[in-house]
């Protein structure tokens, strides 16, 4: 296990270094997330009565869209000069590659969220972070499930010609349960709903994360064989 974590750490650091040097991803993805929440702000008639329900959905859709945009990038770095082959030829455990890519994607999504949420609070006049600890837990559990499946599907689609289209087409249907649990938990916290409501959603999110993380880590080895 230590060996897997050490390798995952090295791949993660390499990804961060290449990403921050190329400076291609973070700025564009943030702009995209920002545009989604601004456009929804104009598209819907938002009033104090419907704001919490609408806003939680809008916020999660912005995260899903922006996150999906970034997912494709994580394996495209490896396609450059066929580095994925070089990585596959080295004696590393495939699970380490999955963990590194998952953590990298998660890190960038959290950065996007940290940048987007303050803008959202100002634009929608709604403090989504009022219950800071619980809301952070909802975001993190939602992010983990999203990035677990996203990393797996991004690896599967990286060799496809129409990967930019196929990645969201394959991924988004699988994320519907997660979107429902996460958006309703966020809405419940915004409306000051019953603890049973959001705690139930949090448990469902945690279960979703555990199931898909284990399955994805196990399946990833076979996907690597095809890359």
């Amino acid at each position, binding site marked *: 296990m230590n*060996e897997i974590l*050490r*390798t995952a750490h*090295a791949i993660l650091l*390499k990804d961060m*270094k*290449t990403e921050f*040097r*190329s400076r291609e991803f973070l700025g564009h993805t943030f702009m995209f997330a920002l545009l989604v929440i601004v456009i929804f702000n104009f598209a819907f008639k938002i009033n104090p009565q419907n704001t919490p329900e609408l806003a939680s959905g809008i916020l999660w859709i912005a995260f899903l869209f922006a996150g999906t945009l970034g997912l494709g990038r994580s394996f495209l*770095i490896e396609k*450059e*000069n*066929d*580095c994925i*082959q*070089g*990585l*596959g*030829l*080295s*004696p*590393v455990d495939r699970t380490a590659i999955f963990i590194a890519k998952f953590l990298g994607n998660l890190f960038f999504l959290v950065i996007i969220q940290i940048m987007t949420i303050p803008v959202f609070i100002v634009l929608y006049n709604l403090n989504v972070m009022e219950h800071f600890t619980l809301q952070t837990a909802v975001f993190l559990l939602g992010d983990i499930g999203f990035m677990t499946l996203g990393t797996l599907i991004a690896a599967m689609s990286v060799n496809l010609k129409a990967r930019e289209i196929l990645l969201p087409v394959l991924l988004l249907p699988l994320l519907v349960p997660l979107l429902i649990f996460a958006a309703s938990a966020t809405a419940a916290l915004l409306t000051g709903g019953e603890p049973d409501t959001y705690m139930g959603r949090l448990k469902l999110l945690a279960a979703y994360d555990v199931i898909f993380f284990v399955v994805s880590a196990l399946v990833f080895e076979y996907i690597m*064989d095809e890359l």
Partner: protein
Amino acid sequence: MQTTSIICQKVGKKYGDFVALRGVDLAVNEGDFITIFGPNGAGKTTLLKILCGITRPTSGAATVGESDAHDPAVRKRIGVISHKSYLYDNLTAFENLVFYAEMYGMENREARAAELLESVELDQRKNDLVRNFSRGMIQRLSIARALVADPAFIFLDEPFTGLDHHSAVMFQKLLSGLHRRKKTVLMITHDIPLGIAAATRAMILKGGRKVHDEPVNGMDAATFLKIYLEKVGT
């Protein structure tokens, strides 16, 4: 006495209905330098992919150093050089080598990277990003990458692609150096003069079958070209 280090027994590979390899037998001795020639679609790259453990044969068996080629333990003992560099453009030459050394679980990563950069005469450019390198420099660095864990087996897939004459000659010298260090080298190339110069043995594949496999014994490129055309046709 020489020991056989790479063995293929009736190796076959199908991709759907397409047959890429048809029962290829091969036995490579330790320290041999074998070059495999053949027209496009002959099955050369497929054979190399099987030996590297990237893909499994549909029939037959391939062993590298007494282990099944798909065994993860084999990966520690092979170095692969392709026309693709497997290098990260946004890392420096030094960072690339340190990264790969880490992937092979090596201890003295920085020292090994520095030593390899010196051996391929890139030590002066160690802190330059790979994206600023010429094709020749990238190929030299890719040799260093393949040698990072001091592998016993070196596999090369069209390594001369895109190299100018000067870089190709320099690359050839580096390959000869590998052979002198008793590495077992298996190379695939279309370039007969460069491919035959370093080899101790030459093999020709055609339509997934082995049609020629003989020691080179100082044969010149022109003589081998005649054999090649005879076996493969124009």
